[in-house]
C-alpha cells in the first residue's frame, strides 16, 4: 500500500509523459499528411469499428530521397567526429585531474563543469563573436598577415562548437573512474618492470575503457540529434537530422514525415543507447 503511494505518482507521470508520447510518435509516423489542424489524418480511424487508414508514405519518402539519407549520414559522421575529438581531449584532462594534488581535484573538476552551468547559448554566442568575418580570430590572424578567412557557418565552426559544448560530458565519467582507480595495480606493473608508458598502455588504459566508451556515447548520442549548434554555427546548406526534422515540422508542417525522421533516428541510435545503459549498470 505504502509502496503503491510511492510508486504510482512517478510511474503514472512517466507513462503519460514518456511512454504515451513515444507511442503517439510511432503512430503518427504512419499517418498521412493532410491539410487541417493538426495537419495529418490519424492512422487509426473509426467507422463503426477501428479502421486502419495509415500509410508508410513518409518512410517511402525517407528512403527514396537521398536528401534524408545524406542528412542521417552527415549527422552520424559529425556526432562520431565530435565524440572522438571530445574523447581525445578529455582523456588527458581526466588524467590531469586524477593526477593532481587531492586538494586541487575538486576545484579542477568544477572548472571543467562550470562552463556547463554558464548556459549553452551564451557559449555558442561566444563562438559566433570569435569566428565571424571581421571577428576576433580573424583580427588576430590579420595581425599575422593571414586572412580574413570565412570561419563562421563552416564545418570547422560546427565542430568547434560541438566539441566545446560536449567536452564536459566526456571528462566527467573519465575523471571519476580515473580518480577511483586502484593505484597499486600500476605500482605492481611498474614493480614488474613496466616503463611508465607501458604501465599506461597495459594497465591504466584497458581498465578505463568502459569509462571511455561511456564518455564517447554520452557525447555521440545527443550530438547525433543536435539541432541548435548546426543551426547557429554550421554551414547553412549542410543538413543534419535535427535541422531536417525541425524544418519538416515547423516550415513544411509535414508532421508524419517529422515523426518518421524521429523514429528513424531513434532506431539508428538504439544500439548505442542500449550499450550505454549496459555500461552504466556495470559501472
Amino acid at each position, binding site marked *: 500500500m505504502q*509502496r503503491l503511494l510511492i510508486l504510482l505518482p512517478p510511474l503514472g507521470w512517466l507513462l503519460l*509523459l514518456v511512454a504515451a508520447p513515444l507511442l503517439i510518435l510511432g503512430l503518427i509516423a504512419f499517418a498521412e499528411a493532410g491539410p487541417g489542424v493538426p495537419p495529418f489524418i490519424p492512422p487509426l480511424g473509426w467507422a463503426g469499428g477501428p479502421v486502419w487508414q495509415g500509410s508508410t508514405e513518409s518512410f517511402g519518402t525517407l528512403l527514396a530521397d537521398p536528401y534524408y539519407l545524406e542528412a542521417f549520414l552527415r549527422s552520424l559522421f559529425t556526432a562520431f567526429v565530435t565524440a572522438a575529438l571530445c574523447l581525445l581531449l578529455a582523456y*588527458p584532462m581526466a588524467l590531469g585531474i586524477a593526477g593532481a594534488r587531492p586538494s586541487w581535484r575538486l576545484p579542477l573538476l568544477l572548472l571543467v563543469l562550470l562552463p556547463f552551468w554558464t*548556459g549553452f547559448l551564451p557559449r555558442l554566442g561566444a563562438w559566433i*563573436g570569435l569566428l565571424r568575418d571581421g571577428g576576433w580570430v580573424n583580427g588576430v590572424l590579420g595581425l599575422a598577415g593571414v586572412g580574413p578567412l570565412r570561419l563562421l557557418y563552416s564545418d570547422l565552426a560546427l565542430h568547434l562548437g560541438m566539441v566545446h559544448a560536449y567536452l564536459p560530458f566526456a571528462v566527467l565519467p573519465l575523471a571519476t573512474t580515473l580518480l577511483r582507480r586502484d593505484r597499486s595495480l600500476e605500482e605492481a606493473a611498474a614493480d614488474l618492470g613496466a616503463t611508465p608508458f607501458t604501465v599506461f598502455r597495459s594497465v591504466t588504459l584497458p581498465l578505463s575503457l568502459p569509462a571511455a566508451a561511456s564518455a564517447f556515447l554520452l557525447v555521440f548520442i545527443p550530438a547525433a540529434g543536435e539541432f541548435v549548434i548546426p543551426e547557429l554555427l554550421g554551414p547553412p546548406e549542410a543538413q543534419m537530422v535535427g535541422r531536417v526534422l525541425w524544418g519538416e515540422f515547423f516550415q513544411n508542417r509535414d508532421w508524419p514525415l517529422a515523426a518518421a525522421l*524521429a523514429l528513424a533516428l531513434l532506431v539508428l541510435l538504439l544500439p548505442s543507447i542500449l550499450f550505454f545503459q549496459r555500461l552504466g549498470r556495470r559501472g
Partner: protein
Amino acid sequence: MRRIGLAFGLLFLWAPILLMVLYAFSADRIPFQWGGWSLRWFAALAANERMREAAFLSLRIAAGAATLAMLLGSLAGWALARFGPFTGRTLLGGLAGAPLVLPEVVTGLSLLLLFVLAQGALEAWLGWAPGRGAATILLAHATIGLAYVAVVVQARLATLDPSLEEAAAGLGAGPFTIFRTVTLPLIAPSLAAGWLLAFTLSLDDVVVASFVSGPAGTTLPMLVFSALKVGLTPEVNALAALVLAVAALAVGGAGLILARRANGAG
C-alpha cells in the same frame, strides 16, 4: 604531458567564455571589439523589456519544473533503490532513463504530439482546451528533470549504509521517524543537487521548449536563440557575463561548503 593536456583543455573551454565576459564591458556596438570600459550593455539589458519578461518566465518555469522533478524523481529513485525486484521495475527504470538518452528533437516532438492530441481530446469533450505555453514547457521540463533527479537519488540511496537506518530502528525509531531524522538529512544534499540540475537544464533548454510552447510562451533561451540566428549582440555578451557570475557564485559557494566539510572529515 597530462598537465599540458589539462591546461589545453581548460584553455579551450574557458578562452571563448572569458573573452566574451571581457568584451561585455566594452563600449563598442560591435561585439568582440574593444571600445573602452563601459557598463552600457548591462544597462541596455536591464532596460530590455522582452528580455526581462522572458527571463522571469524562464525562472518561474525552471523553479516549478525543478520542484516537480525533485518530488517525483526522488519517489522514482526511492522505488528503484529500495523496492528490490518488483513487477514494473524494468518499466519504471526504462521510462525514467529514457529522457536521459533520447535526442532533444525526439523528446520535444513526441511531447508536442501528445499535447496536441490532448488538446484535441479536451476540445472534443469539454469544448475548451488550455493553450500551449508556459504550462506545457513546465510539464516537459519536469519530465526531463525527473529522470536526472531519479538517477542522483537512486545512486545516493544505493551507497547509504543500511545499518544507519537499522541502528535508528534499534534505538526505538519508527519508520517515519527514521526517515525524518536519518534518511532525509543524509540524502538532502542529493535532493538539492537534483533540484539544481533540473533547474539548470530547464533554464538552458531551447529545443524542447520551442517544440512544446505555443505563441504565449517565449522563454529566455528561445529569445536568445532567435537573436543569435541573426548574429551576436553586445546584450547577449552582457547576459552571458551575468549568467556566468551567478553560476560562479553558486558553484563557488557550494564548493566552499563541500571543502569545509571535507576538511572537517580530515
